[in-house]
């Protein structure tokens, strides 16, 4: 059986708080998750859901209260395994007294690359992330988006097998976002595994083979974006034009935009609705399936989580 690229078992992180650190807040609760080799995995969830906590645990920046994780079959405590991993921190910041080329060269030195190899890779990476003309400027003069690009370059500089990106699109303009999307797809084409966290669902829908949805420190579901959204009941949408007026209750129910009306009905009601609309003099323009989006699925989870948190708060009172 092939080894998963990333695997977590009951991964839990609690933070003590309060004056004597006697109280505990759970940031991540019993995470069991697998990212397969060669896939693009999106880790989605609202702010504070536990995405960055998970990634920091995987990178050994913080330590789990319980549970364990492995990357490429090796325990996360094995620092040598970092040779095969690339990591982009959330809102990355680098030594601002260095230029982009110097910072990349500095990081490349930890991968035992020769001077010539380092030079070649640094130039290639600067070009790849669109910083070839800014490579000799100190990072203190860089914008947030430019720092994000440097962060991405240092993450993929050494051709890692697994790339972990924490909010890679954050701080980027539309052009930058598009470029990052292209880089992720390029990594996938080259057989590299990519796990990235985001709260921008369209990015996840567009790029990911599978996504994991995390809310309130708990994993609420994993699967292909399409699979996840099928959990929601689907409906049908009828688009029509209506010259003049009508007393039909269906027309009253429809949403009007200019001359056009949009009506949502269930699959069972569809044919009866079309008949009624035609009888009322409507011209049917289009009939299409209403697919629940990942956003709706996501919002349902977030709202359920908030309702549960509120219920717990009331019962505690």
């Amino acid at each position, binding site marked *: 059986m092939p080894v998963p690229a990333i695997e977590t078992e009951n991964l839990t992180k609690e933070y003590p708080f309060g004056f004597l650190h006697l109280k505990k807040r759970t940031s991540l609760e019993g995470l069991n998750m697998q990212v397969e080799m060669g896939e693009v995995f999106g880790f989605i969830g609202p702010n504070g859901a536990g995405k960055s906590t998970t990634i920091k645990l995987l990178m050994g*920046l913080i330590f789990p209260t319980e549970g364990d994780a492995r990357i490429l079959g090796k325990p996360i405590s094995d620092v040598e395994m970092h*040779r095969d991993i*690339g990591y982009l921190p959330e809102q990355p910041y680098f030594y601002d007294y260095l230029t982009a080329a110097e910072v990349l060269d*500095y990081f490349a030195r*930890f991968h035992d690359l020769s001077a010539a190899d380092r030079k070649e890779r640094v130039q290639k990476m600067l070009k790849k992330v669109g910083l070839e003309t800014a490579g000799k400027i100190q990072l203190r003069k860089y914008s947030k988006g430019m720092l994000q690009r440097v962060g991405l370059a240092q993450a993929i500089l050494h051709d890692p097998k697994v790339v972990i990106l924490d909010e890679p699109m954050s701080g980027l303009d539309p052009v930058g976002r598009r470029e990052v999307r292209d880089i992720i797809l390029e990594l996938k084409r080259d057989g590299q595994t990519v796990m990235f966290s985001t709260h921008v669902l369209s990015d996840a829908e567009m790029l990911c083979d599978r996504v994991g949805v995390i809310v309130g420190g708990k994993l609420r579901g994993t699967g292909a974006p399409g699979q996840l959204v099928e959990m929601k009941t689907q409906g049908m949408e009828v688009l029509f034009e209506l010259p003049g007026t009508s007393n039909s209750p269906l027309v009253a129910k429809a949403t009007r935009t200019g001359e056009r009306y949009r009506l949502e009905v269930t699959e069972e009601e569809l044919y009866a609705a079309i008949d009624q609309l035609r009888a009322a003099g409507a011209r049917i323009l289009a009939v299409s399936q209403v697919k629940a989006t990942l956003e709706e699925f996501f919002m349902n989870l977030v709202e359920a989580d908030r309702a549960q948190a509120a219920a717990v708060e009331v019962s505690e009172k």
Partner: protein
Amino acid sequence: MKRVGVVALNTFREAVRDRVLYNLVFFALLMIAAAILVGQISIGIEQSVIVSLGLSAISLIGLLISVFIGVALVSKEMDKRTLYALLSKPVRRWEFLLGKFGGLVLTLAVNTAAMALGLFLAMLYVKHSLERSDSSVLIAVYFIWLKLALVVALALLFSCFTTPLLAILFTTGLYIVGLYVQELRDLPVEVLSPAMAAFTKWLSFLLPNFENFNVMAMAAHGRAIPGSLILNNTLYTMIYCAIVLTATVVVFSRRNLK
């Protein structure tokens, strides 16, 4: 060890680019002014005045750099989160710590050596020649550098488990206490209970002894510094630094970064 060297060289580069070595300009101006003034107002004691002033300045400037930059070595990396990307490379936390320590000690070596050169030039200006006995000034500068290395190790330790402000206070406080270790050791037993006497003696061995590094009076008067003191101070610094750095590694290796 290669990774330690990479971090150390970058720490040195940071100090240079953040203009830490600009303090040398201040030192140079001080030495020029002192050399000119001393020649005019002191009769026969030019050597001791210029050496005392020079060594005090080297020590004070070095201490300021050691405490403030020593505390910031790790805390700034954690605060600005520059450490995140670095630790995602095949770098162990102890390699990072040793590299940071080595980088600042290297910076201090360059800084102290440059100031020593300035001091010798001032001495040459005042006395018009250098003698063999002036080598004790060089040894005094070496002792200052050893002392600074020890201060950096302490600053690094405190910065790993407390806030930068408290780390500065603890390091400075320990340095001041360390100047009076001999007095603590020599407290008259009759004024203390036996238990208290044992405690102060034990404490005096535990605390860093900075008093041994002060040979300013000997250097100012051109007296020879015994070879055994050079050896003792060198070994003491190496062993004490090793213990403090080991404690730092133990603390930092378990620390959750924010």
